[in-house]
């Protein structure tokens, strides 16, 4: 296999790479030409990619004709942009991230036929390429050793904090000399979010001058599919019992613990209320201070401080803080934000 072939296969596996962005230009293909029936297999594949991701599946690729694979990714993005369905964009980037994750795992694994000692001396080409992608595209240095992978503590922490399972806490990891020891699967799992973000930003930023006429039918089909899959939801207008409880406590002038106030603030702000609308709610609190309240609300809303908008705590968290007063209407929800949302058809 020559270098060009290797490059094509790498791009087919990881179509979000920077170089794929220039693929059309480099191959002198125009969007209009892509609409030509010669490229039908690529368009069909693109549609399949979207369909699979919308249904929560990971699209299985065929790397024998890498060109079609690469083009189908690019066309899929054009179709998604043409359809403008944010949920499908999100599902697509997540499914594609998981697909890339699978390839990274395959590329990085030690092949069985050689002894480990030999591998330490000489890594395979695909291992080198995968390590390069992690390093250059995601600023993630991974060291391969015997039967484990090592990443720097700071690099680990930046990524692992997005996971809530206890086993991802640093204290539950083998840590030595500034490195965290991981399995292959764990190493690749760490960057799923970044893969997802990379693909999602590709969807947002790709410049598309005009969409070929032949794509229109696919776009119509995608929109129809969206109508079927994504039934719209309506909000009943009622507050969930935990929020009601918090408001009642405050109305009585009783003390609501910090976690309860945080619940009220995040819930109401996320429902679209402004800091000025929410602030008076805390007026009856025994330790009310207008300036402090506003400062904290602004912080929670993300309009001051680090700019992070805080999310409403989950039902599980509220249960552990004894702030949950669930009623049968709460069945099936995992966050108070979902309360009162009913499928239209129910």
């Amino acid at each position, binding site marked *: 296999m020559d270098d060009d072939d290797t490059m094509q296969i790498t791009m087919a596996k990881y179509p979000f790479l920077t170089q794929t962005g220039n693929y059309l230009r480099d191959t002198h293909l125009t969007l209009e030409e892509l609409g030509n029936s010669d490229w039908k297999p690529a368009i069909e594949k693109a549609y399949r990619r979207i369909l699979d991701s919308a249904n929560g599946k990971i699209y299985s690729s065929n790397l024998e004709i890498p060109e079609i694979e690469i083009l189908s990714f690019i066309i899929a993005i054009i179709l998604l942009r043409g359809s403008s369905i944010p949920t499908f964009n999100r599902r697509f980037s997540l499914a594609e991230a998981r697909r890339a994750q699978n390839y990274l795992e395959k590329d990085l694994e030690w092949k069985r036929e050689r002894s480990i000692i030999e591998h330490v001396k000489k890594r395979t080409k695909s291992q080198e390429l995968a390590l390069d992608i992690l390093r250059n595209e995601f600023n993630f240095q991974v060291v391969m050793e015997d039967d484990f992978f090592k990443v720097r503590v700071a690099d680990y922490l930046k990524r692992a*904090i997005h996971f809530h399972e206890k086993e991802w*806490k640093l204290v539950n990891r083998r840590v030595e*000399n500034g490195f965290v020891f991981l399995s292959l699967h764990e190493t690749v799992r760490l960057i799923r979010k970044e893969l997802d973000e990379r693909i999602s930003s590709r969807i947002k930023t790709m410049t598309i001058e005009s969409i070929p006429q032949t794509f229109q039918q696919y776009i119509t089909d995608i929109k129809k599919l969206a109508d079927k899959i994504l039934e719209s939801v309506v909000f009943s207008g009622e507050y969930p019992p935990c929020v009601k409880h918090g408001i009642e406590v405050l109305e009585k002038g009783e003390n609501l613990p910090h976690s309860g106030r945080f619940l009220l603030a995040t819930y109401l702000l996320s429902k679209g209320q402004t800091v000025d609308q929410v602030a008076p709610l805390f007026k009856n609190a025994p330790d009310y201070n207008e300036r402090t309240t506003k400062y904290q609300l602004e912080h929670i809303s993300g309009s001051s401080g680090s700019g992070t908008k805080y999310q409403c705590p989950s039902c599980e968290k509220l249960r552990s803080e004894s702030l949950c007063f669930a009623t049968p209407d709460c069945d099936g929800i995992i966050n108070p934000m979902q309360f009162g949302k009913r499928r239209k058809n129910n």
Partner: protein
Amino acid sequence: MNEKNILLIESAFKEYYFNRFDLIHVPRKSTEREFGYQKFNSGMIRHLVVKNDKELHLLLMKEIPSDVYCSNAYYSYPNLSMSEKDWKGADLIFDIDAKDLALPCRKDHTILKCSSCNNSLIEFQSQCSKCGSTKFETVSVICKTCISESKKEVTKLVDILTSDLNIKKEEIKVYFSGNEGFHIRITNNDYEPLGSQERADLVDYIMFNGAIPESFGIRRQNNSKTSLPTLDEKGWRGRIAHRLFSSKSKTPKVTKEILSNGYSAFQVQLEEVRKTMGVRIDPKVTMDIHRIFRLEGSINSKSGLSKIQCDNLDSFDPFSAACLLGDDTVQIIADCPLQIRLKNKKFGPYKNEVVSLPKYVAVYMLCKGLGNTI
């Protein structure tokens, strides 16, 4: 604090700041840091930029602050409001405070001060013997045990920082906080960009919070001795192995016990390890990436002692090394029911009496609220 006391303390602080320029420097990257200070009986003034030692010395002489602080963070615009500063990174900092160690000696060096008549007591009483008030404040004074126990925590911390986290000894600076503990500052590029959440997980690692038996080879069922930590491992697995097995010869017997005792018993053992081997740092300090932290070389107004670097932790005696105020004699009314030892000299106990004391002791008592100027 009353104005006369402030005058005496401020004159002692001013003398120190004037004479000991050699001890007070701006930290590296000073132009990117936020400075702040407080004066007695007034609020915090912050969002300041102090470019160099000269500007710092000028500020100290002009304002005679009770306390001076400097951010661990670096910003593009340190003098703008919090949201406009543009955070760039922050030194990793740690605070080890004897009051958080819950030591049995605390009661022996804590003085109760009646909130209404200022009467000082050492024995717990539900009512003030003088005025009958039931409200008390507590004041803790010098204790060698507190310092030596805090030093042990510092040593544990430095061990984790160097061997687990690969931070070099020369990147770690240990300071006496100026009151009852130690501050540790790390300058290491790898850890500088970490946000608050990442630092929180690092804190849990250092304190050994949230460890689960599975990480040390014990599952709810089907356990085997091969997944247990061994004595030659490093990090927490190695520490746990040393704690559990103590030696190679005892390993088979202890392994058998661990496997037969099961999951919950191991959980209890991990909790024991957390209490004894986890480093007792103040999590809030390390997690805070916008904190202004006491400036090294400055005086701590809780005691009149200075925050100074400890080059040799084992032999470091804060009650003489950090006691840097003048020793000319001043008269105060001291009400200090416990004996104080500063600069290797004993003072007190005093029962509301006029005494002539070296300035450093007088200021210590005034700062602690255990005396008044005449």
